[in-house]
């Protein structure tokens, strides 16, 4: 029940919160306008005691029902206030090609998390300063967790030899012959 955090955000930064809703498990979510996410993160950390950085990720909405497809990406943030024993769940909607302000300056843990999101979804973070790929390599083309990236889109650095008698798995390079 992260009611406290969202109430405080609404009271102190009323223009930042676009929407609030409750998920199936009864937990509260806040949708933050992208340009305000850094201010919200600073408020949560400095004034409201949400000092533990939990996680960040993104969702590609390409295959959701048509009315939910715009804008294309959601970036989700989870922070924790240990004293109040409360998680806060935040979400930023962002179009393809647009950039979310980085919260690396607020939470050092966001450094790798933002690199991960950039690597797998191609969502940029302005002001990050060191936005390299996290798990894949620099030569990798595309962003692997986008819904339009093929499931077997292998990109080996060293060409793989075809193995004809194995139907699926490594070596076929996505081509059946």
């Amino acid at each position: 029940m992260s009611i406290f955090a969202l109430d405080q955000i609404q009271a102190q930064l009323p223009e930042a919160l676009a929407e609030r809703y409750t998920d199936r498990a009864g937990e509260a979510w806040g949708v933050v306008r992208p340009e305000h996410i850094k201010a919200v993160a600073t408020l949560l950390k400095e004034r409201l005691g949400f000092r533990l950085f939990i996680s960040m990720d993104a969702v590609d909405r390409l295959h959701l029902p048509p009315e939910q497809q715009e804008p294309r990406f959601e970036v989700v943030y989870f922070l924790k206030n240990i004293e109040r024993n409360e998680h806060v769940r935040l979400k930023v909607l962002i179009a393809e090609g647009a950039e979310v302000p980085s919260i690396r300056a607020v939470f050092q843990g966001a450094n790798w998390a933002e690199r991960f999101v950039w690597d797998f979804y191609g969502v940029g973070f302005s002001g990050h300063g060191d936005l390299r790929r996290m798990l894949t390599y620099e030569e990798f083309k595309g962003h692997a967790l986008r819904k339009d990236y093929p499931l077997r889109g292998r990109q080996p650095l060293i060409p793989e030899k075809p193995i004809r008698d194995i139907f699926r798995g490594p070596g076929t390079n996505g081509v059946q012959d």
Partner: protein
Amino acid sequence: MASGDEYDPTPSEDELEAHLQTRNMVINLGPSHPATHGTVRLRIELDGETIVSMDPEIGFLHRGFQKSCENVTWTQVLPYTDRLDYVAALANNFGYLTAVETLMGVQIPERADYIRVIGAELHRLASHLTTAGALALELGGFTAFLYALEARDLLTDRVTELTGARLTTSFGRIGGVNRDLPPGWVEKLTKTLNKVEELAAEVDALLTRNRIFTDRTRGTGVITKEDALDFGFTGPCLRACGVDYDVRKAKPYWAYSKLTFNTPTGNNGDNFDRYYLRVLEIKESLSMVRQCLVQMQPGPVMIDDWRITLPPKEDVYGSIEGVIAHFKLVMEGVPVPVGEVYHSTESPNGELGWYLRSDGTGRPYKCHVRAPGFQILAGLKRMCEGRMLADLIPTFDTINMIGGEVEQ
């Protein structure tokens, strides 16, 4: 007395100041190195033996965990979760299942709750023993490693009897666990726990007051409480800094609210505290498993709802409802309603969180795992820069980075 011809043995000031030109050296530790478990490449810039800067590069074991999960049914995700933290597979299995059950609003039977606690705590024991043993091994104490691994092997045997697999357990199903405890297993487990307690005491006795060991671990790899929170440390690494945060206490799940246990905390945030916390947690886990064995009552281990769990085989072959339920579950998967959830459990290394998103198609639309090791490895830079190269090895051990969960 003071004549100019006498020899003065004191060197002049500029002679002392004459210094050699040194250059910083860049070395690679890994990706395949005996002291880095898993394949992580550390690019280290050294000034003598002092680390000037360090950049961990990960991803050599990247398997496309999330992409794979998005293309299989909710139940078929289970084998992929084994391979996240492969030292403590049951903690991942049950953590994932609990997140799915939270999304569905399913309450599992009480006996299944207890079995999940037992399984998760057995693997917490295994993980902590491995960490303590490997730490000793890499500091030159081979004996302690053997004691720890003997204890872990006994636990692995019990896990094998329970789940059918040594490491990749894939145990539990949405709605409970797929199998009750085998006959005679509780007696065996009780003996095993006594033996593990002895062996853990040996490890403790060999290391905790060992001068060489404490010299290498005390005051090395220090991280402050503020930095630890900022980087997103959880589990023993956060508690070693003095922050009392344990998901089992903060948001009790399964049967943890019915058990009596402590969450020990340190105060220095150094390698020794992280090691010693694990020794203390081994004792707590042993006590928890014993309490579970006393408290648990006979009863069902799966919910009785054929929309979610597979019907018994006699019903599949003997009734049309059974056939239909079986067919729909196997072909379409468990019907998880549209929605999203973030749920977390305490794995041996910290908060294991799951952000799951369902679009109602029977497959996860999004399956984000918050691996505790990922955030901790991000903080390794802060723990090592400006310190000695030799301190990197115990630090890397006590944060217990598991390649499987970090590189997904």
